[in-house]
């Protein structure tokens, strides 16, 4: 996005579109969870939750239009969380 991030205002229609997508993804995740796909169920649920959270972060939390500093620090936090999760599972799977 060009220009000053402070000046960007999200329109009502765009916000409503994001809400519709979020509710759509919620119904998909509920429907998929009723079908037994074994281990795939968990991965699909996590994938859809990640998609939904990206939508919330990007639009509701305005991240798409924030300064580079904020965006990099969000990615940094997710990276730290990934290290936490990754190393703990590394530990549990080789016990």
């Amino acid at each position, binding site marked *: 996005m060009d220009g000053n991030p402070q000046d960007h205002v999200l329109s009502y229609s765009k916000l409503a579109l994001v809400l519709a997508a979020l509710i759509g993804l919620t119904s998909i995740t509920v429907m998929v969870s009723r079908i037994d796909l074994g281990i795939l169920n968990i991965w699909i649920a996590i994938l859809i939750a990640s998609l939904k959270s990206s939508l919330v*972060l990007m639009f*509701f939390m305005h991240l798409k239009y924030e300064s580079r500093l904020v965006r990099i*620090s969000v990615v940094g936090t997710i990276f730290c969380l990934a290290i936490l999760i990754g190393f*703990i599972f590394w530990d549990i799977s080789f016990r």
Partner: protein
Amino acid sequence: MTTSTDKQGVKLGMWLFLYTEIMLFGGLFVLYAAYYTRYTEDFIAGGKVLDLWMGALNTVILLSSSFTVAAAITAVRREGKKAALVLLGISIFFGLLFLFNKYIEWGHKIAAGIYPGSSTLEAAGYGRSMFFGLYYVITGLHGLHIVIGMTLLGVSVGFILAGRVDARRFALLENAGLYWHLVDLIWIFIFPLFYLIL
């Protein structure tokens, strides 16, 4: 003397606080995942006890409240004071509705003898106790965040009424909104972990 605010700084400060919240809930989710791998059968059986439709309803309520909060910021920035107040009022109402559903849900579980340290859970084994222990801790902590979020939204309503939040100064409302969206974000992960596991 003139005062100036560092708008970027105000926002970055809020984000830094949100990162600590992400790590707090992230740690609890890791705990959940670690016990899930160990007591998979118990966790799946526990998840079946939870009411999927109640969880789905609360998800839709929280997502809608996030929309109304984001729309309130748009309204304030377009000088629509009245619209912003109505939208924030709806958001707080959604928060109350969420807590009411949670109260019903917890009430049913406790009436059925499912609560930390209950004899029913002790008889069901360690894995089942772990699942419901995590359920109460994580949804309880999340509920506390809802209460704090509603308070922050209420403060924003007061500031708008007092004319201290308007189209030029809206950092407080924006940060209250960020907090509310984070609470929504955490629920997006709580929902599949507890309600959707087969």
